[in-house]
């Protein structure tokens, strides 16, 4: 698959503080890419640099083979969907969507009938039929989201940047819009670069997930690989499904604050040592149960559990005060009741752990 956007060592600092510390990435054409990063990781800055609202301090940005850093935003042909939607408040829904077609510098559509036809098609595509003449103050958050998307898509950009597009919506709507965004993107055949701080959203949406950490791309992988093989302890932490221990490898075990953990699985080089075990790979056993030969065992006191329907998350405090989370899926078992402040053995298979050296 050819890449539509290439970033080469893109750098940007604000008042001496680096926001982007050398970004290298290539985004595939006709794909859904999510950009995951904690707040302050520079993800919005990266998006604004790609759109041309901010100038990078250095590096190259190539869009469809053309170098675009230094090109003003209106000549880039890259769409942008804002978190707050940024709709034109003095125009109706249809006028908002028609605005780009009628007013763009390159190839404006002057024939009112063509504009109307394309606006009508787009309104149908995003499911806003019947709301054409509404003022944008008269529609709901989800509808505004669709207008913002339609306004951008109708100009047929080859790439659309979405800055936390679902952030302003309530949880129910967010889940529904996820699926719709994917469907709409597939129908239009454009590349979406979707910035989000939510790991579930990033995993659910992206064909490729880019993880941004402290101004650098920490990992670029498909959702499955990212989830099961994060490239570093920091990436694992953003995924919010790993218990992570600091420490270092010594011989056949990883020495952590809660004791030596026997090695057995994959060890990856990542620059910073760490030991990660997924929440759902851990089983909770009575304190006196003996572990099998290929298992790692630590102890913790039960604090509380959180029931979420299909799974229950139990929280334990370890001897060094750290909180340890275990996710138990309830498809085959009823939730067990644990005794508060009781000691339990937390056991996992050696090979299930991810070790970073």
């Amino acid at each position, binding site marked *: 698959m050819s890449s539509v956007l290439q970033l080469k060592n893109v750098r940007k600092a604000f008042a001496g503080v680096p926001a982007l510390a050398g970004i290298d990435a290539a985004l595939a054409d006709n794909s859904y890419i999510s950009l995951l990063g904690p707040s302050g990781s520079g993800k919005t800055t990266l998006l604004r640099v790609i759109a041309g609202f901010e100038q990078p301090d250095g590096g190259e940005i190539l869009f469809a083979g053309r170098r675009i850093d230094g090109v003003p*935003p209106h000549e880039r042909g890259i*769409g942008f969907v804002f978190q*707050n939607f940024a709709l034109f408040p003095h125009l109706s829904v249809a006028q908002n969507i028609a605005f780009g077609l009628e*007013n*763009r510098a390159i190839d404006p559509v002057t024939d009112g009938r063509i504009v109307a036809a394309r606006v009508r098609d787009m309104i149908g595509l995003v499911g806003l039929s019947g709301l054409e003449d509404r*003022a944008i103050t008269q529609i709901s958050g989800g509808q505004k989201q669709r207008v913002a998307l339609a306004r951008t898509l109708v100009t047929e950009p080859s790439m659309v940047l979405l800055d936390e597009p679902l952030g302003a919506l309530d949880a129910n709507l967010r889940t529904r819009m996820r699926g719709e965004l994917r469907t709409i993107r597939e129908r239009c055949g454009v590349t979406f670069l979707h910035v989000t701080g939510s790991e579930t959203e990033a995993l659910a949406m992206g064909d490729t997930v880019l993880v941004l950490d402290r101004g650098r791309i920490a990992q670029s992988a498909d959702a499955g690989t990212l989830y099961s093989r994060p490239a570093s302890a920091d990436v694992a932490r953003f995924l919010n499904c790993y218990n992570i221990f600091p420490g270092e490898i010594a011989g056949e075990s990883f020495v952590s604050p809660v004791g030596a953990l026997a090695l057995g699985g994959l060890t990856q080089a990542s620059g910073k040592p760490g030991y990660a075990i997924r929440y759902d790979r851990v089983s909770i056993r009575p304190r006196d149960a003996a572990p099998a030969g290929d298992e790692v065992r630590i102890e913790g006191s039960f604090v509380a559990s959180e029931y979420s329907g299909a799974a229950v998350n139990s929280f334990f405090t370890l001897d060094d005060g750290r909180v340890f989370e275990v996710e138990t899926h309830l498809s085959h078992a009823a939730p067990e009741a644990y005794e508060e402040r009781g000691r339990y053995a937390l056991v996992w298979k050696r090979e299930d752990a991810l070790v970073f050296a």
Partner: protein
Amino acid sequence: MNATGIKFGLGLYTALFIVFLYGPLAVLAILSFQTGPEGGPQFPIIEWSTYWYKHLFGLTPPSRIAPLPIEQALVRSLTLAVMTMIVSTVLGVTAAQAFRKKFRGSGVVFYLIVLGMMVPGVLVGLGMALVANTLGIDRHWWGTAFVLHVVYTFPFAFLVMLAIFNRFDPSVEEAAWSLGVTPGRTFRKITFPLIFPGVLSAMLFAFTLSYDEFSRTLFASGRDLTLPLAIYGTFSVEVHPNVFAFGVLTTLFSFALLGTYAVLMGLSVRRAKRFAIQEEA
């Protein structure tokens, strides 16, 4: 003090405030209906009449009281106010637009602009007269005085627009750019309609401030007088209620101006209202 007491106190305060605010205007309005030509600008009202209004328009038989020499002055003042309004508003909008981004020396430029409304008017007027004399420039209401009016009203327009831009969400402009629309067209089609209520306020400020500007104009306007100067000139002879009648008419004119402002403001939000009604239907 209990709640009723506080309410009463505040009510009294408001009443006094209104009396002092509109008292002079009310007195002026009442005295303008004094009988003429023998009635003077004081109480009691000898007899109610519209004599001084007719006198203003030359509709009364000739008497010893000369008509107010204001006809040309009024035209001058209105022309000057419109010129000032246009130039100051354009300058105010563009300057405030420039201040949306920090630039080198923006602090100094800000104070230089605001200085225009701070410095004492008489001094600036005198200074302008001296400069004009030194450089051999004739003083005219449409020249030297006009420049001073712009210097004086531009900061007001500028500050109004600065406040408007402060609340303006720049992401709508970025959205337009990302749709392929040039910054110039974006300003015309998106930014300007959204800041239009502010532009109207800036225009109103510039117009009214210029229309009754006295101290700067006094030395800078040269031979032909503007309205405030012409009215002041009549005081030096003898005050007759015809000045009051004129004052009432000017006030009515100001109300008309405010009314126009309100209507235009209303028009700029009409669209939203119309949609609101559709929503309810």
